[in-house]
């Protein structure tokens, strides 16, 4: 990228991680050096918590999307950094008579900095919901949920990923609260320039190897889409069919997964961006060959980092198991902190949290024996 001005880096501070699992919510907090960690929880024990997110605008609000095996989906809110929680009075739900039901809220995203109290939720099956009161009550974004093309874009509510089709990666342009992106598995990446009233696909250049048309306008399977907060025209996506970058206003994605080692491949779920450098990102590859085992390739987990926008990739596996480790990392389960030397963290399907306090050069297991981890977010 072109030279850019970056504001000064904040002084080191403690890192807190919110860990959403198949059986509840935990928090993991560090000291200022990020050497010592303390696990607290569980909260919502027995709930399937798909995502838990802290509000970057006020440093005290947290939202958690939860359901149980029996009970329908809801959202819990905390106004005191997770000490106490209150259930939403009106959780995301499709319109009565629409024939659609929210199976679970999957993705939570705080709204624009100029709109305190605004939140977005992406659901399974694909639906987009908005709250203007800090997550207490939610209404459908009609411009998406009732868009005449929605079903054509997404397919049926039974199609999509094994765990149900999902709307995820709700991204708000920091320059313009009405400029939104979403990702859908399946459906693809879509963009709105009018606060969600209308949407257009943004998928050119992205492979969809499971479709008869090799370059269709929609129907893709982005697993995780990220927008760089300091360079909001730059987006990356980890897709079912590779890794991609786009620099708007271009409307065609560039394949940056082809530079990954052939023995590892470009398939994975999560993707994390450096909080200040738009050229640096991390992915966690998984085995997408044959019958899609969706585990670390060869049982040897590794993070891959690029520092040049995806032109080249470096393997970062120091400290990670060298063999016979058959877990993977889901799309919301990898995150970075804001420290001067960025900390990178991920949670595994086998209930471990791994952390690096040197931008991925070395890794240490911070926690073991948690349930299957769905999401890890720095709070």
């Amino acid at each position, binding site marked *: 990228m072109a030279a850019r001005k970056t504001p000064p880096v904040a002084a080191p501070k403690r890192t807190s991680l919110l860990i959403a699992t198949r059986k509840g919510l935990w928090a993991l907090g560090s000291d200022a050096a990020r050497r010592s960690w303390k696990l607290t929880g569980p909260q919502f024990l027995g709930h399937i918590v798909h995502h838990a997110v802290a509000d970057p605008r006020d440093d005290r609000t947290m939202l958690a999307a939860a359901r149980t*095996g*029996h009970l*329908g989906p809801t959202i819990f809110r905390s106004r005191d950094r997770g000490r106490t929680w209150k259930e939403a009075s009106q959780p995301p739900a*499709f319109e009565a008579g629409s024939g659609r039901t929210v199976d679970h809220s999957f993705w939570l995203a705080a709204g624009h900095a100029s709109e305190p109290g605004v939140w977005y939720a992406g659901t399974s099956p694909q639906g987009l919901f908005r709250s203007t009161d800090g997550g207490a009550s939610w209404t459908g974004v009609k411009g998406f949920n009732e868009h005449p093309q929605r079903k054509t874009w997404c397919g049926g509510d039974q199609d999509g990923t094994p765990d149900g089709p999902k709307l995820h990666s709700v991204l708000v342009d920091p320059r313009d609260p009405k400029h939104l992106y979403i990702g859908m598995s399946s459906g693809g990446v879509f963009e709105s320039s009018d606060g969600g009233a209308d949407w257009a696909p943004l998928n050119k250049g992205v492979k969809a190897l499971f479709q008869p048309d090799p370059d269709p306008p929609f129907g893709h399977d982005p697993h995780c889409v990220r927008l760089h907060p300091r360079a909001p025209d730059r987006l990356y996506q980890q897709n079912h069919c590779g890794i991609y970058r786009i620099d708007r206003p271009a409307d065609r994605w560039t394949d940056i997964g082809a530079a990954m080692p052939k023995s590892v491949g470009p398939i994975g779920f999560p993707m994390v961006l450096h909080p200040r450098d738009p050229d640096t990102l991390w992915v966690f590859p998984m085995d997408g060959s044959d019958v899609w085992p969706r585990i670390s390739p060869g049982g040897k987990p590794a993070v891959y980092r690029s520092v040049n926008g995806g032109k080249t990739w470096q393997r970062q596996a120091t400290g990670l198991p060298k063999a016979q480790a058959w877990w993977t990392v889901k799309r919301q389960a990898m995150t970075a902190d804001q420290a001067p030397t960025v900390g990178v963290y991920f949670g595994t399907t086998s209930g471990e949290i791994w952390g690096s306090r040197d931008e991925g050069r070395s890794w240490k297991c911070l926690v073991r024996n948690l349930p299957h981890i769905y999401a890890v977010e720095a709070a």
Partner: protein
Amino acid sequence: MKVLIPGLLRSYTAGADTVVLPAHPTLDAALRDLNARYPGLRFRVVDEQDAIRPHIKMFVDGELARRLDTPLAGSAELMIVGALSGG
């Protein structure tokens, strides 16, 4: 009528395993009354299309009720149960 609350819903009823409601004509009316007393409870067991959720069962005087318009006239007991739902 008496409503038997399963363990998985007692966070709404402050731990109560039984709630007594006045007579209601239908299961729907009883659940709306229950939700007015314990906000949020209904949506956990009934979806937005007014279907009882897949792993929830409701018995009216021992008979399985599959629909919200099930009449309750003269019924003494509503039992809400969390059925099997995976590991």
